[in-house]
């Protein structure tokens, strides 16, 4: 897989293909409301979650009615359309709004972008943090817990026989400790989102850290949600170091920008790094879904593709 090179000033790039989704969260189309780059893009591809009965879906659909979006509800078709539009353009700049995508679709889209890397100018990720809403404080049942897509099942290596878990903490009660007790890693790093809302930070801390799962306070690594550039390097450094000794499994709970960056780094090191998801939302059970409105902040991260990383960890 190719490596990437982060690009400064992502907001100055002109976008020709916008990739987003139409979902039940109000913020799912926030990029089309507030980002000029997204509004001006020639092609706007939206994956349709078809959640008519939930929250803001209908209103969102009405709102984007005349914005020239191509709305597709079949995932295979959606991914094929992305590939087709990339091939039609010359080195297009692509904006991927990760805000409301589920982690699996996000991974599949990023896989397509990596596979199409020779034909892409740059990729800009956008993420709109939500307005803070107090979490329920109840344990949620896990519906699925496993690799986010088949590409992230990991690999066997002679150097690595134990497990290192890098978990991006969210504010859901007990989710991190549940994962630790299920996976039983030798070492756990907890990446802690900061910089959006202190109430969110307090909720993340309250619902996770009291369980005292860290071997060392230094394994708690704060990252800035609104500065994905530094977050990217922080995750990458950590993965690179850990891969020399242990199998690395990234569990990106919390803000989707963390999930997107983790997936990108895992693709660079593919197939060495596992990325898992921990799904508790179920479209058949609407009360497991909650609406989310954008807080007004936006995180942007842009990169170009480059030659595969030379300093990859040693693997068999």
């Amino acid at each position: 897989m190719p490596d990437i090179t982060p690009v400064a000033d992502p907001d100055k790039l002109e976008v020709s293909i916008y990739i987003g989704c139409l979902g039940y969260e109000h913020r799912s189309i926030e990029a089309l409301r507030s980002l000029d780059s997204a509004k001006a893009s020639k092609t706007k591809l939206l994956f349709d979650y078809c959640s008519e009965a939930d929250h803001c879906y209908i209103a969102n659909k009405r709102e984007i009615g005349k914005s020239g979006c191509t709305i597709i509800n079949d995932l295979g078709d959606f991914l094929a359309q992305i590939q087709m539009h990339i091939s039609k353009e010359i080195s297009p700049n692509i904006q991927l709004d990760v805000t409301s995508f589920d982690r699996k679709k996000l991974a599949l889209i990023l896989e397509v972008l990596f596979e199409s890397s020779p034909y892409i100018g740059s990729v800009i990720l956008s993420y709109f943090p939500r307005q803070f809403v107090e979490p329920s404080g109840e344990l949620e049942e896990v519906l699925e817990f496993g690799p986010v897509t088949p590409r992230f099942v990991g690999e066997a290596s002679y150097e690595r026989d134990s497990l290192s878990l890098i978990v991006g903490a969210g504010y859901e009660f007990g989710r991190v400790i549940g994962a630790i007790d299920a996976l039983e890693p030798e070492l756990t790093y907890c990446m802690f989102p900061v910089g959006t809302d202190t109430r969110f930070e307090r909720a993340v801390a309250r619902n996770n850290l009291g369980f005292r799962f860290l071997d060392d306070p230094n394994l708690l690594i704060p990252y800035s949600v609104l500065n994905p550039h530094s977050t990217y390097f922080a995750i990458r450094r950590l993965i690179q170091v850990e891969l020399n000794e242990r199998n690395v499994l990234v569990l990106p709970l919390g803000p989707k920008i963390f999930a997107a960056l983790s997936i990108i780094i895992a693709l660079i090191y593919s197939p060495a790094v596992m990325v898992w998801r921990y799904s508790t939302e179920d479209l058949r059970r609407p009360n497991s879904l909650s609406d989310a409105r954008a807080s007004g902040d936006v995180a942007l991260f842009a990169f170009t593709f480059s030659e595969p990383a030379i300093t990859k960890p040693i693997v068999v």
Partner: protein
Amino acid sequence: MASTSQFNARNASASQIARDFVMPSYFPEVAEYRNIVLVGPRGIGKTTLLKALTAPGLTALHQREDLLDLLRSIDFDYIPIYIPAESIWKGTAGLVAKEVQSIQDRDLILGGLFTDHCLHQLISSFEEAAIEADSACRLKHPWQVMLSNWQEAQIAEKCSELWKLEKIQKSFLGIKMQLLQRSNIYRGAINAGNSSRTLDAVREIGHLDFLVMLKGFMDIAQTYCGVKRWTISFDEMEIAPKSILSHLYENLRSFDQRAALKFSLFPYVDFYEEQGGFIPNPSSPEDAQDFHPIILSSKFANPDYTFARGLIRSECDRRAVSYGAFRQFLNSSKAILPGSREFTEIGFERRPAKIYDYAVGQAGDLSLKQHLATKGIKGPQDIERLVGEARRAEVVRKVFPIAEIRSYYLVKTKDKKFPSRRTSAKGYGYYHGFDQLLALTEGNPRAIKYYLNDLITDMIEGRESHRSQNAAIPMNVDRFRAMVASQAIPRDLSGEDRSALKLLDAMGYALADGVLGDIFHPEPPLSFRIKNLHPSLKDALISAVNSGALVVEQNVSGKKLLFDLEGCRIRLSYRLAPFFKLPTISGQERLLSGMPEIKKNKDSQPDLLTWANADA
């Protein structure tokens, strides 16, 4: 203070485990040369036991002078092979089931991954037992084997052929590298979808049978090194693919005279089902006949906490704290109603007269008062005057365990119709004290260590006992609930929410209604008898049993392994008791067929989420 990840035997080396090993009474049974099935939920100590029985584990155990007498009587004349499961298997298998459409391909991939993992561990364990023949060392123990470079090369070469490796190898390192490479072909096939060259490569390798390959390895090792006896320990095999597990289990009947198989399994055997239930067939192994089952699960009633006490003593020693002082620290909690318990060397006794005062006087439990009045008890002084074993049993032993918990969790009201109601107080005084700690952990070593980690630290730092226990109890309950919630179980398409946690909560709240209701019941139901269970609850129930959240009465069917829950009696683990305010005793039973109905609003249950500030 240690982090809780250190309490997991998975990540400890065998010699580390042996160094701190507290020997349970059943250790000789586990160690002896015969087929064994170790049964118990997570954290009960199965991995610790099996790792202690590896070559480096046995060597380290024999370096402990305090254990030498105990070890001397055990026959360790075998080469121990230890095969752990990988915690990521379950998630990976779930993905394979979703992504790989052909059942044959699925079986090839999962079977191949499992086999190569086992073969890798087989070689690693053999290397651990090997003493270099060219070195000055001599065999000191029967679990060791002399191995020269020539012998290694011969074994590696023969194994390469037998195990269908791509290239013939001359060393164990080469074998392991080849196995890893092949393992990555299987992983690649998961990623490749259903029609690719990688999948073709998997089909070309074909079906791999670990047991056949294991037998071949034993033949080869016997030829070149003279090894005649082996134990093969499969740890945490419940994570392994069910079809493979079922195959391994079948082999308990007649695998090979040269090997004793040792399995560790969850309490409910869900890999061995035919048409929805266990149907014995002529090839099915029989417990006691083909294997010796050792049940490590929590006891349904009359628990024996000898091992748990030993573990606590050892942990206290490790942290340079007096065991007696620690007991005293827990028993001195101000949240235990003063004078309601008398602590002795062997436990505590309830003081019924005092409990009467608290329950009737402070908590306004007039229902208890009325109940005792029908037995001729008009006040606490009448309890003191009771004579005769039968009379005391009727009035004191049955009534006061329930009266005691009501005295903590009912409060007096001004309502004449309902003179007491359930309190939402966040304190856990009823669960304080050393013996309650034993009950709350159900003797589960990992649970004990989680609790001790905080409690001993608090004691050393001079924190007040009641504050320390009020923080530790709900935190550990929440951790246990989070573990239960993290066990993903398949949902049916109806979308009905039949999760383990939902079921446990419904059961717990329903029982709590009986214990803390308006009417005093001296013997409220505290367990369930499963009868005509609604099929939609089965998976949730199994998940709860296997995670240790439900404890099954073992002596129901005569069989030690649990193949069918119908007719079984179960109770909620005491590890969850503080969440529902349930007593740590077993009681009467009620039927469980569907999701229990809850009468009371669950808001009246304790709010564990505030444990961080629960200093009350």
